[in-house]
């Protein structure tokens, strides 16, 4: 039998090798799943991972990659800061929704303005909405010691009902002939988050994601606050002696992750989604949790992970239309990826030893 032996220091090799190994294992397990569903596994895997980049329609699908990766990266970076410090904001989906509602709401309130200041104001409003929604679990945690995991998650359901109310009530398109959903931003140019460079799928959300990744990397490696975040996660006792205030850290991490999720929602609603509708949110807030772990909670790793996860979305849609693969299969695939990642990760801190006889 094997037994685990703790490594004196975490393995640098496995720290970086874990994600690729997990991806390969997921492809194998996913292939078995697809085969069990009566699909040709090689064809499905090729459709998901190869065709969007090099296939026949790659010229269009490559652009879709950044469209999907942008919000994932933006949300995951915020989450990763908290996860590093041991602060578990898993309600990013709710902050994303509220950011979208507040951001879009500010724009729609002044429809049909042509001022070029409206879009920046909406960006700030979106970030503020997400931030404020994340402050609820943050303040409850610091004031009343309430579990932030449960509160942030409960607020996702609350946000979803507010979204339903927004699209059928207070943000409903007055010229929409009774259909639910807000005005479409494609007919509101001053407030629209249009593509800056369509072939790459680059809009302001993508720009924000890439800039945020660089800023977060600098924050974590070069700034006092980043040091405190890492210290609080790795050695909470040492962090207290160092003078790290847990309250400030919770407010900081939850605030940043909420604001980033709100931004992602705002860029999505004014861009690719186009309008506030009941099913506007597509689970980016939850998938971003996988992205954060896949990227090893490192901003630059998260950029790569975000693109990989976007690939499963774009390729998954392809597989859905071309091969009739159900959308839920992709969700299962993404869940498996996180499982394999967590399982392989044991090799970072432990090594397997063959246990021969008595030790």
């Amino acid at each position, binding site marked *: 039998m094997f037994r685990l032996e703790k490594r004196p220091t975490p393995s640098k090799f496995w720290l970086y090798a874990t994600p690729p190994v997990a991806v390969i294992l997921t492809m194998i397990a996913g292939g078995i799943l697809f085969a069990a569903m009566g699909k040709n596994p090689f064809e499905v895997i090729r459709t998901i991972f190869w065709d969007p980049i090099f296939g026949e329609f790659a010229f269009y699908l490559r652009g879709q990659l950044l469209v999907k990766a942008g919000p994932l990266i933006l949300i995951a970076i915020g989450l990763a800061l908290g996860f590093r410090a041991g602060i578990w904001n*898993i309600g990013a989906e709710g902050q994303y929704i509220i950011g979208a509602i507040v951001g879009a709401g500010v724009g729609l309130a002044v429809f049909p303005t042509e001022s070029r200041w409206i879009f920046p104001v909406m960006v700030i409003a979106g970030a503020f909405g997400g931030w404020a929604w994340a402050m609820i679990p943050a303040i409850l945690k610091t004031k009343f010691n309430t579990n932030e995991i449960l509160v942030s998650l*409960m607020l996702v*359901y609350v946000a979803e009902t507010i979204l339903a109310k927004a699209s059928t009530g207070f943000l409903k398109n007055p010229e929409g002939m009774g259909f639910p959903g807000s005005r479409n931003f494609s007919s509101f140019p001053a407030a629209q988050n249009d593509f800056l460079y369509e072939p790459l799928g680059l809009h302001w959300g993508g720009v924000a994601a890439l800039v945020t990744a660089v800023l977060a990397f600098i924050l974590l490696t070069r700034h006092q606050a980043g040091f405190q975040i890492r210290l609080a996660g790795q050695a909470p006792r040492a962090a207290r002696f160092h003078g790290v205030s847990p309250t400030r850290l919770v407010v900081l991490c939850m605030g940043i992750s909420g604001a980033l999720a709100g931004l992602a929602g705002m860029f999505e609603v004014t861009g690719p989604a186009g309008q506030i509708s009941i099913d506007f949110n597509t689970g980016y807030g939850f998938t971003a949790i996988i992205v954060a772990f896949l990227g090893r909670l490192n901003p630059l790793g998260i950029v790569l992970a975000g693109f990989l996860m976007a690939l499963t979305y774009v390729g998954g849609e392809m597989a859905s239309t071309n091969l009739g693969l159900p959308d*839920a299969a992709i969700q*299962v695939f993404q869940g498996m990826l*996180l499982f394999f990642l967590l399982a392989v990760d044991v090799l970072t801190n*432990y090594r397997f030893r063959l246990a021969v006889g008595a030790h």
Partner: protein
Amino acid sequence: MDLGGINPVILIATLMASAVPILMAALGETVVERSGVLNLGVEGMMIIGALGGFIVAVQTGSPVLGFVGGAVAGALLSLIFAALTQVFLANQVATGLALTLFGLGVSSLGGQGYNGIKPPPTGQLLPDALADLPVVGPILFGHDWMVYFSILMTAVLWWVLKSTRIGLIIRAVGESHEAAHALGYKVNRIRLMCIAFGGAMAGMGGAYISLARVPQWVDGITAGAGWIALAIVVFASWRPWRVLIGAYLFGGITVLQLNLQVAGSAIPVEYLSMAPYLITILVLVIMSAGRKGKANGAPASLGQNFHASR
């Protein structure tokens, strides 16, 4: 007796039934957490149980076998969590989240083709003569067997945790895994069994949603019940009878808001359907306020993995 279109006897009777899913799941999670493991995958295990139970019940035509199927499905899924956290020593919070995401995906994949089917009904357990008695009839005698089973499980778990050797071992492992290990207990093996038990309970709770509460298969049918169950465990300070009180409280709120929706209350539907989640948050705040640190009754090793270095 009628209070604004709501009959209190029927309200109490329905709240007992509507509390069953969260009660079962929360009881299971209580055992898991008492053994020092935080499994955030309750929502995933519940929905897998809801689907597994539904499929078995439809295929065999037996609702009882359906509940068994739900328990097996939930336990099987929880074994993934158990393997990752107890063998591969993965982070419990991350693994629990993964379990929920995975469970939601698998259920929506496996549930295709089961929409719009009626499951075999789970009937009332006791004869009509008892159930038709005024007031006490509907409340005490008018339920299906799962309602009584969930109350029985509350009593059994209370007794097991409090007065038996198994309960003592579970609590020892949860309070101080180092000490339990030194006494010769297989910490990870005991935790693994607790996790599987928690999975079975969550699965049965989920099956009750798809077989008795709704009753049909809908994508995302659990709608956050697993997370409410997790909150109830905290609310109950990890004690079975308080779990029952908590579950009935939430069952009551859910039924009340549904009744108010039907009765056409002045409060908009959207705000009413927020109520269970907002009240969960409120209760969490009340329970946690003023108790800094671990003094709230949480098992001391909760959420920490154990690796025997010697």
